[in-house]
């Protein structure tokens, strides 16, 4: 594999964040449905945007690795297929939400879709164990590689959680500005 194996240090963190983003999104959706408070929808949107990006990056970096390891850019392997479905669900949710103007309707529809789409998350995680495929299950790694990967996962996680927090604050301010404008114009 040579240098190409180093892709694992970005592939694993973005894959983890893609899954975490979906869990945060579905959790925020459930919290919104229970409380009807739009602050949960701001978490939802922030997690959806970053999760979508990480999920897409998982497919791209995975494809680069596959080209080196398997000699092909793509295989309809169970892990790859379920990961692609996750990205497609993310894309669908973001597209549907962008077409809805009324904030509570947008939050409600997004929450229901995220809860239904969340059923794919355990499939992505367990795909390599439940079904036979090409994707490695838990490859053996030298201790130094394991430490490097752990540092990378923690670093990516801290940075993306910080980004999500910033985006959530921004969405909250945008919502306040829109509300103010509605009152002034109304």
């Amino acid at each position, binding site marked *: 594999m040579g240098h190409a194996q180093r892709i694992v240090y*970005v592939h694993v963190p973005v894959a983890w964040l893609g899954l975490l983003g979906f869990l945060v999104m579905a959790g925020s959706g459930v919290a919104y449905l229970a409380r009807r408070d739009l602050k949960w929808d701001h978490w939802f949107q922030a997690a959806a945007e970053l999760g979508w990006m990480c999920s897409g990056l998982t497919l791209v970096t995975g494809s680069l690795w596959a080209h080196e390891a398997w000699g092909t850019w793509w295989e309809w392997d169970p892990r790859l297929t379920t990961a692609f479905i996750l990205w497609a669900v993310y894309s669908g949710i973001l597209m549907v939400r962008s077409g809805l103007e009324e904030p509570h309707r947008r939050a409600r529809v997004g929450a229901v879709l995220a809860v239904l789409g969340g059923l794919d998350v355990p499939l992505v995680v367990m795909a390599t164990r439940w079904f036979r495929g090409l994707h490695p299950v838990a490859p053996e790694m030298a201790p130094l590689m394991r430490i490097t990967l752990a540092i990378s996962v923690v670093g990516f996680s801290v940075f993306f959680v910080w980004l999500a927090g910033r985006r959530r604050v921004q969405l909250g301010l945008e919502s306040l500005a829109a509300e103010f404008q509605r009152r002034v114009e109304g």
Partner: protein
Amino acid sequence: MGTFVAGYLIVLLAVVFYVARLGRQQRRLQKQLETFQAAWLAQEDQNESRSRAA
């Protein structure tokens, strides 16, 4: 070598684009808030002059 560099660059570019988008939205929001503030101050001035005239 090229494959892993390409992978790292793609991830880096995606993050840079996202952060740049956040920055653009932040500047737009700031302009919007400044417009609101100016409109609010103008309204206050108007109310004050009206009350003085009365």
